[in-house]
């Protein structure tokens, strides 16, 4: 349960970051590469995308807090078998 939630948060954070990053790039005009200067102005699709991006990154790390702080009900399936092998 806790591990699932952590995974969801990590995933949500990554998706949020990736989506807001992509939307912030003006990729609307065909033939214009990412680094070219889009003629129609260089704004993102909507405002506050950078804030969402940061939020996404933060969410990823916040997952660690969630994982460690949430009360442990069931044996944790997280981390995946490989990681736990250490020691």
């Amino acid at each position: 349960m806790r591990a699932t939630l952590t995974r969801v948060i990590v995933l949500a954070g990554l998706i949020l970051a990736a989506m807001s990053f992509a939307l912030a790039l003006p990729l609307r005009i065909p033939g214009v590469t990412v680094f070219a200067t889009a003629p129609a102005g260089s704004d993102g699709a909507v405002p506050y995308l950078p804030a969402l991006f940061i939020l996404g990154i933060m969410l990823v790390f916040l997952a660690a807090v969630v994982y460690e702080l949430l009360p442990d009900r069931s044996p944790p399936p997280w981390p995946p078998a490989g990681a736990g092998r250490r020691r």
Partner: protein
Amino acid sequence: MARYAMVIDLDRCTGCRACMEACKVENNTPRANFWMYVFRFEEGEYPNTRVWFMPRPCMHCDNAPCVKVCPVGARYKRPDGLVATDFDRCIGCRYCEVACPYGVNYFNWKRPERNQYLDWTDAEAAAVLAPYTNGAVPPYKNPDLERAYGPERRRIAGGGHLKGVIEKCTFCVHRVERGLQPACVANCPLFALHFGDLDDPHSQVSQLLRRRSHFRLLEEASTEPRVYYLGGKPPGSDTRQIETIRARA
């Protein structure tokens, strides 16, 4: 959609700097800001001295480094090729300025009343002129510069608006949108400056570029400037600037 460009005929330029002044008055740019700057150059040694002149507006690059680096999209490229600065957006980080190889950006180091010619915080000067200028700073304040331009309706014209933002040559967007030539081009006493649409094969700029050999400044930086120079050659390693303007804000 037009594709605007400027063509500068170095064979005609006398280095008089009238373009700089026309720009300043038209755009109300602050003291020591030269959106249009005219280099006076000397090469060689007496008596084989060569003197020549080179106006330097903003190059309005197609691959503008300043547009690339602007963190907030205040500097942007318009569909007609003008590189604009939204002074309502700019945060004043000056990244565009350090990215630009041409040195065309000017930052408002001072607050507007102190940024212009004469200190308008000086109560006496302000009071003396108020009846004639309605308190306008500078006294020749151009009302067109406050308006929004382009389909995106952003305020991009003129200079000296507020402290802590970057400004530069706009190709006189407020004039161009009214079908006029930029102030420097319109005023050039030697008709050395030309402005027009590269997509129109009959425009003067297109014809000049077809007819005469030309270069652009710092082509090696692949900035794809929209300013073309006719005649002469780019400044080289032995090109010295003379009669340098050293005004600082």
